[in-house]
């Protein structure tokens, strides 16, 4: 089986997480980094928005500051995601352009890579399927959202898999006029989004999801995950990107 570098489930800030993803693409562009899968969590909890979204349109920054929730713009499109430290695990898969897992047909490549999440959920005894454009659903409810970018001669796909979901907190972070947060809206979200703990009705640990994702990606994508680490140049690029881009108002509030 093809070997991928595997960066074990780790915990970083929002700025570090997004900077590391981009730093890996820069190293891969130079032919210095192998295909890579990384798993990570966000501490402090954070909200990420799609690259084309307006930060102040989508996120209640005052609530975030008061509650020590970071906010960040991704380099990928898609929507706003709340990355609760206790409530989800994020993955990033980075492969060079032309790789078998990332055909030029974008929807097809979402489906292939999301196969890893579907297999991970299967290991947790949850039946799920890919729902175009970029979601994985179980029982008709979204349990994983994913986003892809193609740059630096590689394809990066990252995504979240929900372990837990607090709709009330989500509505406080995302900018929905408070008077519009009706019981019906909360019910609508509960009817369209779910989490592993809700489906299984038991306390699934973060590590259990992490292990399932590792096994799921390996099996579904037919890859051997070799534990590795960031190279010094990747880490240096990540530090630079974190300082010059991802932690700046210029980037995060650019739209």
């Amino acid at each position, binding site marked *: 089986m093809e070997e991928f570098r595997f960066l074990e489930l780790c915990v970083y800030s929002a700025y570090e997480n997004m900077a590391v993803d981009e730093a890996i693409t820069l190293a891969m562009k130079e032919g210095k980094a192998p295909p890579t899968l990384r798993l990570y969590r966000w501490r402090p909890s954070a909200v990420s928005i*799609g*690259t*084309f*979204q*307006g930060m102040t*349109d989508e996120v209640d920054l005052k609530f975030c500051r008061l509650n020590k929730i970071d906010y960040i713009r991704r*380099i*990928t*499109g*898609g*929507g*706003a995601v709340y990355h609760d430290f206790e409530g989800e695990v994020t993955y990033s898969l980075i492969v060079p352009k032309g790789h078998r897992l990332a055909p030029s047909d*974008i*929807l097809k490549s979402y489906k292939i890579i999301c196969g890893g999440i579907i297999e991970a959920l299967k290991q947790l005894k949850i039946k799920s399927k890919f729902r175009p*454009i*970029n979601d994985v659903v179980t029982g008709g409810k979204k349990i994983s959202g994913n*986003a*892809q*970018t*193609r*740059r630096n001669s590689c394809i990066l796909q990252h995504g979240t898999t929900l372990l837990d979901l607090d709709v009330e907190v989500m509505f406080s972070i995302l900018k929905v006029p408070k008077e519009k947060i009706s019981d019906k809206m909360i019910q609508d979200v509960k009817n369209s989004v779910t989490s592993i703990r809700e489906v299984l009705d038991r306390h699934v640990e973060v590590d259990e999801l992490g292990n399932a994702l590792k096994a799921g990606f390996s099996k579904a994508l037919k890859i051997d995950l070799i534990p590795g680490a960031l190279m010094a140049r990747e880490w240096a690029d990540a530090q630079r990107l974190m300082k010059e881009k991802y932690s700046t108002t210029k980037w995060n509030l650019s*739209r």
Partner: protein
Amino acid sequence: MGDSIFKVPGGKLLKVKLTPSEGRILAIVIKGDFFLHPEKTLVALEEFLAGKELDEATLAADIQDFLDEAGATLVGASAADMAKAILMAK
């Protein structure tokens, strides 16, 4: 200055902030949860649209031509959807 929010059926959300002037686009910002590859195409598209006439069919064709020339791929919305969202913000 006008705003619009257009949920593409079966697709993503387009949010347009438009400054019109005498039936043309003076300035425009297109936001939303759609995908556009490469991402840098969006700013170039917004610049390209400045000065264009606010006619839905013409805009749809112009946007499509622009994306084709840029080798760009829009996912979750189409050029026609963007044109529609722009006209909705008039």
